[in-house]
């Protein structure tokens, strides 16, 4: 039973991570590339870590829950690193593809 849970969680996590990285390569401009890693990867990691949690709690003596911490850190930091990266992208005046709406919402460097 637990083996199933673990396997499923692992597969979900792995595929999300993969999807994030695919997005990183596939998307046409930087701003779109950013979405993959900041979201998909976060969730992917979360489920991988949950898998690990279940795994170690069952295979080894006592529950192992500290993997939650990693997820916590990722959830705290991922948005901010995304934010700071977009900031620098905007600062570097990276081109977003033409069909991007509301480019004028970007205020110039302030």
């Amino acid at each position: 039973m637990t083996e199933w849970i673990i396997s499923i969680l692992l597969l979900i996590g792995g595929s999300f991570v993969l999807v994030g990285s695919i997005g990183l390569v596939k998307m046409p401009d930087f701003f779109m590339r950013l979405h993959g890693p900041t979201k998909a990867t976060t969730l992917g990691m979360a489920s991988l870590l949950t898998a690990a949690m279940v795994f170690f709690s069952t295979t080894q003596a006592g529950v192992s829950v500290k993997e939650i911490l990693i997820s916590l850190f990722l959830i705290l930091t991922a948005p901010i690193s995304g934010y700071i990266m977009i900031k620098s992208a905007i600062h570097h005046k990276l081109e977003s593809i033409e069909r991007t709406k509301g480019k004028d919402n970007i205020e110039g460097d302030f």
Partner: protein
Amino acid sequence: MTLLWIPLLSLLGSLISSMTGKLTRNQSTGLTMLLPVTALLMTINLAPAVFSGDVIRETISWIPLLGIDIAFRLDGLALLFVFMILGIGILVIFYARYYLSSNDSMPKLYAYLLLFMTAMLGIVMSNNVIQLWFFWELTSISSFLLISYWWQKPEARKGAIMALTVTGGGGLALLAGLLLLGDIVGSYNLDIILASREIIQAHAWYEVTLILVLLGAFTKSAQFPFHFWLPHAMAAPTPVSAYLHSATMVKAGIFLLARFYPALAGTDMWFILVSLTGLTTLLFGAYVALFKHDLKGLLAYSTISHLGLITLLFGLDTKLAAVAAIFHIINHATFKASLFMATGIIDHETGTRDMRKLNGMWRFMPYTATLAMVAAAAMAGVPLLNGFLSKEMFFAETLHQQLLGSMSWLIPVFATIAGALAVAYSARFIHDVFFNGDPIGLPKQPSEPPRYMRVPIEILVALCLLVGIFPSFIIDDILTAASFAVLGGYVPEFEVALWHGFNLPLLMSAIAVGGGLLLYTQRRYLFQFQASLPSLSAKKGFDDSIYAMTKWCQRKINDIENGSLQRYLMLIFLVVLLFAGGPLFEMSQVGGQKQLTPIDVHNAMGAALLMVGAISTVIWYRKRVVSLLMISVVGLMVSVAFTRFSAPDLALTQLTVEVVTIVLLMLALFFLPQHTPRESSSMRVVRDVGISVTLGVVVASICYALITRPLESISDFFIANAKTGGGGTNVVNVILVDFRGFDTLGEICVLGIAALGIYKLLINLPLFIPAKDSEGRPWAKERYPILLASISQSLLPLALMVSFYIFLRGHNLPGGGFIAGLVTAIAFILQYIAHGSNWISERLTINYRKIIASGIAIALFTGVGSWFFGKTFMTTWYDYFDIPFIGEIELASALVFDLGVYITVVGATLMILASLGQLTTNASKKEVKN
């Protein structure tokens, strides 16, 4: 202890006279003369014993293990020289008192003179050849000081250096020779050496030894071609010349020939080398002397010539020749000393020594003139004077040799020619100075010198006459004793007498005198001929060669030390390649016996990533930011590798260090240009690639060779004792804080010192801040993005928590003080990035210097603590305590030590970044707390 006192007294004299600066000239002179006179009296007291044929010895142990002792020895030869050194020395001191002008420092001259006297006495009385060399070199040093007495004059400086270089060089040769001699004989003791002639001359090194010793002798006694320093030594005050070039310095060389005559002489090599050198010097000196306009110049070259004569005599293969040599040593000393002094008077009274100006001095100083002329006559070898006698013997001996086989008749011929030349320059000295019309533009109006200035000359001239008229009466004892020493206990029948009847030598003398006078009368033709020759100055030659050599050296040095770091690095890498590559080829096979572990997919992938990272770092090294990102891939992969190969502690350390390094490099990047210009030629790039690839291959093969071999190491001990001895289950950490905690102590010292050094480098360094980035964009306005600021402030407590956790578990599980410290530091770095260093320094008012110091101190004192339990430094202690409700906890001194590590790491890291950050922050010079 009398022997020892003789040199010692003159040494003391040197000290005393150097302290007579306050006294009057007479007092100073008196005091200075006191001790040498005493020494002379002591010597006279010893003389009878020596005359009766025994040798007085004294030895004090100095460096027994090197066979170097303080050993003195007084035989006939030594006695003769001691008499000359002291006697003439005293006269010179007396003379100098009147010679020196009031603005010349008398104590200085006296001190140097007596120092020199000491050295000479040491040479002649040494019974240990190393000690002999010791004093030999001392004469070089003290003569350097004497010659450079008037150091304001460039010729004095040059003359001194020239003398020092030539005689010093000779001295080195002599040292080599003496060491060889000592090695051949098995002792440096002179007695033994003199006694083992057969061994020496049979030994394979005899020739080398002989040449080296002769080099020493010839340089010192100004033999051709080493003569050139002597004329330039005339820059010294005349009393000094009178001393150095009549009785002492140059005679030291002659003494050496005499001293080692028993041990080294007797072979054809000796005869050929010595006699030919002597002959050449004799003729050369005599010839050049004729053309010197400077009185002292004339005397200098005549000295060279006479030294040649003596040398030649030592080179003639007859016993009597040696006797004659010794006899002439005495004679030359007396008349040459008096001549120098006379010259000194003339110089002193007229202010010049130029014979073209000096004329008709007879009228102004008849008395001095008489003295000078007598002495000159002795130099010329006129009958009734001592010079004549030795000259006779010399001529006689030249007839009794078969050196040049069928050409041996050449030597007497040359001897006669030399005699003639001697007569000629003596005649010039007399006529040109004292007669020959009126003086021309003298600086001073000449007159007789002060009465007592003449006394020394009077004494010496008297000696010339006495010896010349009643030779046997005056000279026999000392001459016999000296010859006895030189000829090794055998003295041939000889009779120094005025009249040997009509014989060949007498005829030769007659020819010499006649020819000499003729030469002098007809000198103008000779001078014209000489003028037509190209003039070559030894001094110029010497200076030029020194200059050329210096320039050559400077060129070479500039070529080699061209200040190019790349070259230096290249050299290192090449040497490494050579040393590491060489033995690699000697190996039968690189791979070992250990069976290999198969490659699995994630290792392959990790390796791939690592390689890609490394290569692209190199590819993009001109785009610095990019290369930085690439190298951090490498760093990440290295730490992944550490996890893969069961080294969690290393992985953690690598990761934390990685981040701090990146931050540092980012800072560096800001102040350094962001692009690397294209500089190195493609040729060079190819070369560098070649070297680095080869080096890589070599290291790789060594690494492969290592890891494919089985290893039994001391590590099992650590695994076995980690828990029981160190009280921890994380063996790596136990090694770091216990088994090899000493390394860790040193390591945190390094870290602390680095921080101090970095602060030192950066403190109020005027930095230029780029206003735009490499693409010329102005920097963003927003300094501290809001979201970043607020998230980092909530991350700080979490990070501290984690670091505390890592610190605490370190002893039993991966972690420990260092990693914990870096995690803490990084947490603060994040604050620095998010809020800037002012904001931090307002809130974090701690002094990093003290933090570092206390960190190291804690670690150190934990170690010292074990002393109080009678254990050695850093002997750790741990125990388990059972606390109610909480349960068993472990307390270990290692943990305190690790705390020290933690504190040092935090302090050092923050100090580094704080001082860097402070550089750019607000111009208002708010200094970072060091």
